[in-house]
């Protein structure tokens, strides 16, 4: 089944739009989307069942389960109200469920993202403590040049130019090299799947 689905998709992608292989590929992908949607639904129901069980049996951390269930029901209700377009006045046309999501998730993630710069600088310091090699030196010097290059002082214009060159030439080349490597690796695993030799879906 996996080999057939893989072959249908590859042939469909490389065929002209509207041809029989392309239509078969579209049908296959739609079937996969339906299966994925059902899997997500089962996942949501399972999540609710697990937390209801924790609440019912008063297991360790049950108050968190109550919060989770409350938020889940609230977001589902808000989504239904959004679809029904019942909001009026200033809220008319707004997606309140999306706003609620952004208010919590985006704020939380932004707060964590603010810490990342410190983690990275500390990681570079630790890298130098752990193993001083040519490459760790290059990494640390580059990090310092790029960070200092962002400081908006006229005296540091030279470093800003160096930073721009670093980003444009070696960083860009390195990123392309990495992505080509990942692409080649992807092709090799894909070939293994098409040959039926990948075991991640077998017993």
């Amino acid at each position, binding site marked *: 089944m996996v080999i057939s689905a893989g072959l249908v998709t590859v042939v469909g992608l490389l065929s002209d739009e509207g041809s029989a292989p392309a239509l078969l590929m579209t049908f296959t992908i739609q079937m996969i989307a339906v299966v994925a949607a059902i899997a997500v639904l089962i996942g949501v129901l399972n999540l609710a069942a697990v937390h209801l069980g924790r609440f019912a049996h008063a297991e360790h951390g049950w108050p968190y389960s109550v919060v989770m269930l409350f938020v889940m029901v609230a977001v589902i209700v808000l989504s239904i109200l959004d679809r029904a377009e019942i909001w009026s006045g200033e809220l008319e046309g707004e997606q309140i469920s999306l706003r609620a999501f952004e208010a919590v998730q985006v704020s939380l993630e932004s707060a964590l993202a603010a810490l990342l710069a410190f*983690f990275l600088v500390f990681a570079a310091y630790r890298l130098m403590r752990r193993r001083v090699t040519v490459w760790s030196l290059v990494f640390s010097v580059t990090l310092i040049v790029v960070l200092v290059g962002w400081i908006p002082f006229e005296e540091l214009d030279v470093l800003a130019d160096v930073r721009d060159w670093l980003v444009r030439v070696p960083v860009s080349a390195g990123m392309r090299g990495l992505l*080509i*490597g990942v692409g080649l*690796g992807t092709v090799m695993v894909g070939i293994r799947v098409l040959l039926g030799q990948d*075991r*991640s879906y077998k017993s």
Partner: protein
Amino acid sequence: MSDIELTWIGLGVALAVTLIGLVLARLRPPRLRPIPAYVVLPETAADAVESDNRMHLSFGSSAIGETSTVSALASAEVFYRLAERLAVSPQPPLITTSAGLTLPLAQDTLRRAYTYRDRLPAWRSTSAAWFPQGARSLAFAAGASSLAADRDVFSTVLLGRFGIELALMGESALRHDQALVAHSDLPEGQAIAYAQADHALIGEELYVGPAYLNGRAIEVGGVLALDVLRWLVIVGILAAAIDAAL
């Protein structure tokens, strides 16, 4: 030559070199160049079993059905080889993911390993955990790191698709004195993995993992094929550059 023709030729060449690599690997198994992370991973798993500790394995946001499907499959194969070793321990490994559809793959990877060791009754589906996904998956990073710390894991292996959230997970692992092996198929995650991890896997090294961990001939042949393809790409780039310069 059109893009479609080029793609067919590319696929044909990849298939041919894989089959040639398979035959060569069966005739005379090659000696693969050592990759430090794959030297350390089996030793780390053995240490975890002997010291009765857990390992934390994470797919990040590698997702079945998306562009990172192959990363998820490759990571699952490496995790399976580790879980095979860890299945004899009373402490099951913890697998985390931020992609809902990767959760069944994570659970099944562990189930297969426990079945292989004939210890299926010890398998628990709750050893695989999902945390919310997002553009940067930072909520996932916070949740997974917190769970790993709660379960007192001994070492952390992050393979698959990670962005900047890898910094958060790596920092947490290092603060809790966990050994850290990391990889990402995204450049920003890869850079962080290089800086933070005790051993980082770079680029395509993730996809050759099965060949290094008790690999079969088809997997070792795949490594040979990957090397051939890499050289073909290098020659192609040089030829294009010379052609453009002339």
